């Protein structure tokens, strides 16, 4: 036990599917042990207990899509010593950031009979566009063991081990035959942040980048690969405009492709 007083942990939800809160609840074997090491101050999905801040560690899921959310994240940042984002929405804007490429007013009026009742921002943006973030855990959903790793690392005062290299390294480690080279299936693995354990290739499916860009992704080279495999331009754009479509590297590539 590295600490004498249990750190206060709070889980916050913004525009999201709640899959990230559930990721912690999915650690069925470890959940009670984790709950023993921390004081849960706010975890709406699991508990009605709400303790006031300040919080030692705040975990934020979901993206910013409304003015109220913009306000709320600032308040949370001010009352948190360590703030981490979890998942594609909070770290990258999420699948709902696809609205950013279109006119959100058009979307809202198509979707709701009385658009005046709906208050929403033009864009769905990640937390780092609004506040300084201490750590980002990628994934849609994140890997539950990585979440435990981050919480443990925090409790023991060390840096979390969540390597940003590409899926390819995990495929090689697991002896998975490359779906792109062997089967001509377009796969985002070469430019995607590891963490899922090369899940889709292990199911003979091309990666669709639910963990977002790896560090220094060579997006142009991969687009060229997809093209040479016969992928139409629109499909290549869709590959980049997805769960992490609003991140800089993927967004820029999709815009370049759109112009060509």
């Amino acid at each position, binding site marked *: 036990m590295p600490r004498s007083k249990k750190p206060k942990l709070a889980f916050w*939800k*913004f*525009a*999201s*599917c*709640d*899959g990230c*809160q*559930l*990721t912690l*609840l*999915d650690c*069925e*074997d470890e*959940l*009670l042990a984790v*709950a023993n090491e921390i004081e*849960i101050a706010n*975890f*709406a*999905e*699991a*508990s*009605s*207990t709400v303790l006031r801040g300040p919080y030692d560690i705040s975990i934020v899921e979901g993206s910013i*899509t*409304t003015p*109220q*959310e913009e306000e709320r994240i600032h308040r949370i940042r001010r009352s948190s010593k360590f703030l981490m984002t979890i998942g594609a929405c909070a770290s990258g804007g*999420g*699948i*709902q950031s*696809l*609205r950013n490429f*279109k006119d*959100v007013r*058009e*979307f*809202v009026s*198509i*979707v*709701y*009979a*009385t658009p005046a*009742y*709906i208050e*929403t921002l033009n864009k*769905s943006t990640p937390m780092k566009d609004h506040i300084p973030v201490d750590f980002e855990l990628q994934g*849609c*959903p994140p890997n539950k063991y990585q979440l435990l790793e981050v919480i443990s690392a925090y409790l023991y005062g060390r840096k979390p081990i969540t390597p940003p290299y590409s899926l390819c390294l995990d495929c090689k480690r697991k002896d998975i035959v490359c779906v792109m080279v062997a089967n001509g299936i377009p796969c985002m693995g070469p430019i995607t942040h590891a963490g*899922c354990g090369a*899940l*889709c290739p292990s*199911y*003979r*499916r091309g990666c*669709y980048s*639910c963990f977002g860009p790896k560090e220094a992704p060579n997006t142009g080279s991969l687009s060229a690969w997809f093209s040479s495999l016969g992928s139409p331009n629109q499909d290549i754009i*869709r590959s980049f405009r997805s*769960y992490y479509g609003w991140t800089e590297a993927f967004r820029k590539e999709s815009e370049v492709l759109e112009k060509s």
Partner: protein
Amino acid sequence: MCKIAGFATDLSGLRRKMRDIRVASGSFWANRMKTLSIKVDYLTRVEGEGALHVKIKEGAVEDVQLKIFEPPRLFEAFMRGRRAFEAPDITARICGICPIAYQMSAVQAVEDALGLKIDGPTRDLRRLIYCGEWIESHALSVYMLHAPDFLGYPGALEMAGKYPDAVNRGLQLKKTGNEIVALLGGREIHPINVRVGGFYKTPTKRDLAKIGERLKWAREAALETVRWVSGFEFPDCERDYEFVALSHPSEYPLNEGRLVSNKGLDIEVSHFDGHFTEEHVKHSTALHSMLIQRGAYFVGPLARYNLNYDKLSPLAREAAEAAGMKPPCLNPFRSIIARALEILHSCDEAARLIEEFEMPEKPATDVRVREGVGYACTEAPRGILYHRYRIDNEGTLLDARIVPPTSQNQKTIEEDLRQFIPKYSNLSKEKLTAFCEHAIRNYDPCISCSTHAIRIWDSR
């Protein structure tokens, strides 16, 4: 602090008398002039973001608003222009707890548009993965979201101190469901193995046998769950509901069936649009779904249970009788028992499917793209989930309609509160608020889903 024992006793006795008088006069006045507002700004132990506002004036309920403020992510709008085969992956992100429900409704709706009917072992595998999700989602709901209300705890983690066996049993049941989903789907949340036409890869009999072993324990745990929850105290609240669920000639409904109700509805899924409509109310970002002819209706485990009791596994029916749950059950607080019975039934059904499993020839049938409109309705853990897609001849989505279960229960939840609160208006504000929250949790709301009950019209 008085050192004379006798005097100290008198003082505390006096204090107690004063407190009793204060409480008695409080409730006396409270009964006479009960005018108050109940405000819960952020509902907990539900999935997603919602609030509750209730106005009570002189003992009568003036207004009830289940305020959903879950921010709209506008799925149906941004799905336009995506490929139809992306539908299961994208719609899964509508909900972290019930992604399989979305994937099943999505693939079947696309297949319907393409004139494709999936049968045989692939159909069985889809039923199996759905059983996994029911087990996982219902275990989460029963043990972590709903039971704490019956036992007076803020949550399961706090409950674990006094009820360690129960909480562990719940977590392990949830884990069993998750294992099924992870084996067939690749991972528990947003599975990757479901596709239009079937799967990318099918499991082996050996992989399934391991789960079969686990299900032996799970079945016992599910039985214990039914016994545990049927011993809870249930408020005496009943109403005349219109229950709506799928119905199938030989199966307890999961993926297929006709849409039926206890008040005469009996339609094909493709006729959904002609019988149901949505209303956009100011206090909810989720549209309120209604039957065109009769208004509010009730979907979910209790509805399924009441309409399909005879299709439950024999063990589940036995447990139901022992729990005093002969249909029809009109008390929504007892939906926790219906959920527990469905966990048991799913364990039985999953075990049977694994026992009878034959590897399909191919993991997926070949899919040929063509234009069309496709409809599907499946039973998500929380109730019917309807998808409709229009696809062009290149396989691109032109428009989408998704109606999730919780949007369909909103009006019923509000009406429940309107009708039940007057019976309990003698409770303190704190207890009445807890009662209201409990009544909402009867429906195991999945609010992130409900914000996607949206119709989108193609302007072309």
